[in-house]
């Protein structure tokens, strides 16, 4: 059961327990973490579950595919560490991951 730490734009920390192999977006939505909208329901089609995953965790998440890259193009707050939370599966290696939220969702 991976532990996930969501850190809001103003620094507030929400620590939640996710199910293994759940996607990061669902872990946020199921636990009422504010700042993740997921308007498309997890189909990589809206870029409203934008998060930042920094080192060292960045190395442990799978690389993004072309579609995720395209959808991240919709956000103005994109950084090198940007990901869509609906595309990140919570494998056991991600237990304890820190995830930062942008100022707002697209």
């Amino acid at each position, binding site marked *: 059961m991976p532990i996930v730490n969501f850190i809001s734009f103003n620094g507030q920390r929400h620590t939640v327990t996710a199910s293994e192999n759940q996607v990061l977006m669902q872990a946020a939505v199921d636990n009422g973490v504010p700042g993740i909208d997921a308007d*498309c329901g997890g*189909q990589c*089609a809206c870029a409203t579950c934008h998060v930042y995953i920094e080192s060292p965790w960045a190395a442990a998440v799978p690389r993004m595919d072309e579609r995720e890259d395209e959808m991240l193009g*919709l956000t103005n707050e994109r950084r090198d560490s940007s990901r869509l939370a609906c595309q990140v599966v919570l494998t056991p290696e991600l237990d304890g991951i820190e995830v930062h939220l942008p100022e*707002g969702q697209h």
Partner: protein
Amino acid sequence: MLSQNHIQSAARDHAFSMPIEEIDPANPDYFQHDTIGHYFERLRRDAPVHHGHNPVFGNYWSVTRFQDIMAVDTNHAVFSSDWTHGGITLLDEPMEEARLQMFIAMDPPKHDVQRKAVSGIVAPGNLANMQSLIRERTCRVLDSLPRGETFNWVDKVSIELTTLMLATLFDFPLEDRRLLTHWSNVATSNKAVDPRAPSPEERLAELHNMLAYFTRLWNERVNAEPGHDLVSMLAHNPATRNMTPREYMGNLVLLIVGGNDTTRNSMTGGLLALSQNPAEWAKFRADPGLIDNMVSEIIRWQTPLSYMRRTAVQDIELGGKTIRKGDKVAMWYLSGNRDEDAIPNANQFLIDRPRARQHLSFGFGIHRCVGNRLAEMQLKILWEEIHKRFPVIEVVGEPVRVRSAFVHGYTELPVRIPA
């Protein structure tokens, strides 16, 4: 005059008895009389990917279920938006100037860089800065409304608020702001569909007037320091500063229509929906904390643009049908937003519905609405301020609807605020 009940039951009989291949959901009558829902219900049940014919638009596919729409909207490699194929509406304008070159009607990579040139204006930080201005204006407009007499909500509230916002985004002279409303109406008009609309020549002449006005603004701003308005952003961004006049014209139409017709019609549609569903208005009065959810539900319920068109650039299977290269495809957002398989109780207006944000009104994929957050903020402020002032706004007559299969909206909604 026939009663609404009679019109609706006759339309339902028609929709469910006519041969399926004869259904033409782009028929503007269905939108003018608000009977389109019956035809969509039949299509979702019997032919969710449907090939039909329209006397003005020719042959076209209609995609009416939520998940099929999502599949088309997210597959831009096969379903092109590009103006060279016909763009985003069903009418194939002549290749000359009438065919608008705007980034919503472009494929990557040009789409991406032109969109990026303007999208920052609605970035989260900028939206926060706009909030107090929007509230101040909303208060002023609401406080100036007549009491105890009938007036047109569309004109006095919906058009006024959205046009003020749009003028601010362009840093457009406020005293001329109704020109923006006029150009928005002209740009989306279609003589072949609505006899009261300007002719194609008149339409183009008006778009040139718009271009001339905005070219003056461009010339002022291109030589000044970069500002925070849309014209300055376009004039200074490397991706757009060398646009042709035709591209400038196209992108202006996109920004004017996108920032105007849509929110305007959700402002009207929301009042209509709440007045037709008094139990929902009572829920909001009792718990104003429902407002974010209610705003999403209003946008779903109204679906201010009924569809977006794509053109297949290769043969592809969808819902057991083969769509051929070159075929045009309408993604009927208005229908997908009533699809019970995707949205439980989709045919009810419920301000506290779960997952209210998961609607199709903003589209999905790379062309998703740029201004979605601004639209939500405008609607939220409007309803917060209505809630503070008016326990009741009575709708005292039938709305007059736009005769269009594309713009799903109103020209009149007679209302009265008790004295």
